[in-house]
């Protein structure tokens, strides 16, 4: 039984869906296998802030009942029905707490479901629980969580990336086949890169943001986390589509993603290397794996061209003005008046201002406070034009740079992150060094274009995962899945299997060899 469960957790979502459809396994078995794995390894990984066993098993049982009943009940099941999923704890859920990784929301239960959560429920995908993150998604290491850091399954002394380290680590550690993340400056893709998983930031507006606790509204985007490119395509088709509750959501159906992941060739496609997104500042092992992927794509018949986006050098600066500006306003609602933590001032008059102040002082961590202060400053009268205004102009220039680049290439390619996973604590006291982790991912958020990170191999010097990032024009998410799936299959052929097969087993499995893989 243990061996069977171990086998089940190694399957992709697509495989699980097929096994469920053929009734080779039940949804309860699949869900229980993942819950067991969580029980087994999450003490080491700390990917989950909340495990939702009861509800997940109940949903799985519903799926099994529908399949057993046959007829229309079985036919109406979504292809991913019964395939479990983890949800980043920035996304609100009825019936489970939502903390955003912050003390200020400790114990808070949302009275409503995020639109993406409603879609998961409609598809009857059991929700395994809520995953750890940097507080309010602010960070690149998940060390800024108020509930302790998540650890990288490849090396428990290293960070799993951030802010969505919990979702990435859960998927990398086989605790979940799929997860939802949110990506404001790389929070899906950079954790994907350093944990050897696939992460996609869809086109801005492709997935409803309703119910994702806003960090920076004009940059935030919910997206899939998985172990294969096809799985991400399957998941994006579940969660995407227009939402009347999000006026920035697009009306495009984005229903060609799975088909794109199955095209299977890149012959004749033009793939652009972004001159500014590799080279200096990138770890040698990262550069090597990147160059290797380029050669493999060239061998597969793609035309590799070089493009330049000269304004990308201003991207990080612009991002760290726009993002904190929006943060300072979006996080104003956390004041202890209507929900969440309320802290009364220790002494002195009990005025509303002082209660709000005491609550925010006690409830927010340092990184959150840093960004609120930065953003408040950047929006202040007299500074607005110089900071927020200039940053918006840079944003426009970057969008134009990408427009020009996409006139020459169908997709762009770069390393996802400049380095492999660093050690816990290594950059915690150096915010600027931490911010540099997102240098290659931030431009896609500023431009609103989709980006995908997939495993590109292990760096020679440390044996840790390297991520390859693909970027496409807005609304052309399908191109990412087409090229990503092809590169993935070429690489896996080269490796002789999925890269994650090389990751440590963790938990009781690490002492009882065999049974897996």
């Amino acid at each position: 039984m243990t061996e069977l469960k171990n086998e089940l957790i190694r399957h992709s979502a697509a495989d699980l869906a097929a096994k469920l459809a053929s009734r080779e396994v039940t949804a309860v078995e699949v869900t229980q296998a993942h819950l067991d794995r969580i029980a087994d390894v999450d003490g080491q990984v700390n990917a989950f802030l909340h495990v939702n066993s009861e509800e997940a098993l109940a949903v799985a049982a519903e799926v099994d009942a529908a399949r057993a009943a046959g007829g229309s009940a079985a036919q109406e099941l979504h292809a991913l029905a019964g395939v479990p999923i983890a949800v980043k704890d920035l996304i609100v859920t009825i019936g489970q707490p939502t903390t955003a990784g912050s003390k200020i929301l400790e114990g808070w239960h949302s009275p409503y479901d995020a639109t993406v959560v409603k879609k998961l429920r409609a598809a009857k995908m059991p929700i395994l629980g809520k995953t750890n993150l940097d507080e309010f998604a602010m960070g690149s290491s998940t060390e800024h969580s108020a509930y302790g850091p998540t650890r990288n399954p490849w090396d428990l002394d290293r960070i799993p990336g951030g802010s969505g380290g919990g979702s990435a680590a859960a998927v990398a550690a086989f605790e979940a086949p799929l997860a939802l993340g949110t990506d404001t400056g790389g929070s899906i893709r950079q954790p994907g890169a350093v944990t050897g998983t696939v992460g996609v930031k869809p086109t801005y507006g492709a997935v409803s943001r309703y119910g994702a606790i806003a960090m920076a509204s004009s940059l935030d985007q919910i997206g899939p986390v998985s172990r294969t490119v096809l799985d991400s395509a399957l998941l994006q088709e579940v969660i995407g589509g227009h939402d009347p509750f999000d006026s920035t959501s697009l009306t495009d159906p984005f229903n060609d993603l799975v088909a794109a992941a199955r095209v299977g060739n890149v012959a004749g496609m033009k793939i652009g290397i972004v001159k500014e997104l590799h080279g200096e500042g990138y770890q040698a092992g990262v550069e090597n794996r990147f160059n290797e992927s380029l050669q493999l794509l060239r061998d597969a018949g793609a035309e590799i061209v070089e493009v330049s986006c000269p304004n990308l050098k201003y991207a990080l600066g612009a991002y760290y003005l726009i993002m904190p500006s929006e943060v300072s306003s979006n996080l104003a609602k956390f004041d202890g008046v209507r929900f969440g933590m309320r802290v009364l001032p220790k002494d002195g008059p009990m005025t509303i201002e002082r209660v709000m102040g005491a609550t925010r002082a006690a409830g927010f961590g340092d990184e959150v406070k840093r960004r609120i202060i930065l953003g408040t400053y950047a929006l202040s009268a007299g500074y607005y034009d110089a900071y927020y205004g200039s940053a918006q102009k840079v944003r426009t220039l970057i969008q134009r740079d990408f427009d020009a680049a996409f006139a020459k290439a169908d997709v762009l390619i770069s390393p996802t992150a400049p380095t492999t996973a660093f050690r816990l604590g290594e950059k915690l006291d150096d915010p600027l060094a931490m911010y540099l982790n997102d240098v290659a991912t931030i431009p896609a958020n500023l431009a609103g274009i989709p980006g995908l990170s997939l495993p590109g191999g292990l760096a020679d010097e440390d044996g840790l995962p390297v991520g390859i990032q693909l970027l496409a024009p807005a609304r052309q998410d399908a191109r990412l899945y087409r090229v990503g799936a092809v590169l993935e299959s070429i690489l896996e052929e080269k490796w002789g299997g999925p890269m994650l097969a090389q990751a440590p087993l963790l938990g009781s499995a690490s002492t009882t060899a065999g049974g897996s893989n």
Partner: protein
Amino acid sequence: MSVDATLSFEEAMEKYDPVLGFEVHVELNTKTKMFSSAPNVFGDEPNTNVNEVDLGMPGVLPVVNKTAVESSIKIGLALNCKIAESCRFARKNYFYPDTPKNFQTSQYDEPIAYDGYLDIELEDGTVFRVEIERAHMEEDAGKLTHMGGAAGRIQGADYSLVDYNRSGVPLVEIVTKPIEGAGSRAPELAKAYVAAVREIVKNLGVSDAKMERGNVRCDANVSLRPHGRERFGIRSETKNVNSLRAVEHAVRYEIQRHAAVLDSGEPVIQETRHWHEDTRSTTSGRPKSDADDYRYFPEPDLVPVVASREWVEELRATLPEPPAERRKRLKEAWGYSDLEFRDVVNAGVMDSIEETIAAGASADVARKWWMGEIVGRAKVADVDPSELGVTPQVIVELNKLVEGGKINNKMATQVLDGVLAGEGTPAEIVEKRGLAVVSDDGPLLEAIDAALAAQPDVAEKIRGGKVQAIGAIVGGVMKATRGQADAGRVRELILEKLGVQG
């Protein structure tokens, strides 16, 4: 609290020239709120007309109410404004518990309507053009009730209750350009301007326009400058002046107060003032400077509002006749004098008279009933005349009964009281109360004989040609018949009896 010194209005006017400015907030009567699907309803249990969006729960997003945009465009067009082809919302950031997100979603530098004007007709017919700078969309805040302490004020309160039912109610804020040249008519103009805005939004059907409910709220800016000087003085902003009378009084008071401050050689403090109806004066609120920093920035959760020219023209075509034009048309059609028409308008019965005429009454009859009978009764009952319970059909019916000689005017007013008391239709009341003009001459002749016998000297006078003395006999007959006789017929019969030509 010290009482501010004031100059007399006349003296203030001698020395200074007032400049006014108004911000009028209009609550729209859309079914749902500005950015959420919660109901926009006044007066329900606190915190019942709210959803997660109105409460600013984590993760929520706003969605613009299309009807509110339509209403805003209509208001803009009625104020002769240009309508922006595309405009954005902005966030006005400030911490206050009546604003659940701790920012208000408003419009900042891109109002939906701008550069308009409104021609205001003053009592004597003078027309004064008020330039409109902008009309923009925003959301209302919740309502705080301060408990404990003095008179519901935040100072000294033990705690405050907050009701978010009003949070997110759609507002249009109409901002004038500085209004110069009103001189001593400034208070009158202030009242007339707010009345005109109120009338326009009511006429458009976009707001319930009840000032007592806060559907229309006025902030009045006043500054003074010495005559002949171009530069504006320092202004005060009197908040929430919520009746037409109060607008007039507040502007007058502020002019007198500013004049006294300037006379004393002190600078006027730029601040908000609170209006107190009981003392008809203002008190200092918080200092307000142009440096108040709300850290406005474009609302990233909303896409721009695009108003295509086709849509704007479609809406323009649906606009009702402007109130001022309508008044001009009705006055001519009804043939009222200036004074009569102004009284009708001021009494608030123009619509009722129009409906009564439409129901079949003549213009004069309609005016006689509404102005002569109903307005007075409404005042006693402290309701709008139109809400007293008199329908145009009642008046038409009453008038028919009078004209048909069934009842006289005096009886008709009794029938009206019966209608208001819920006794039924006029015909039913005439029946029930036994009211009918006595038309059988028999009883009348008896009464006439008795009256003549009772006052033989008067009868002699009439016989002698002093016909004007007949009143005493008619009076006697009417008294004897308890007013049910037709006085005209009584007079005829008396003259006949005495053989005198009327």
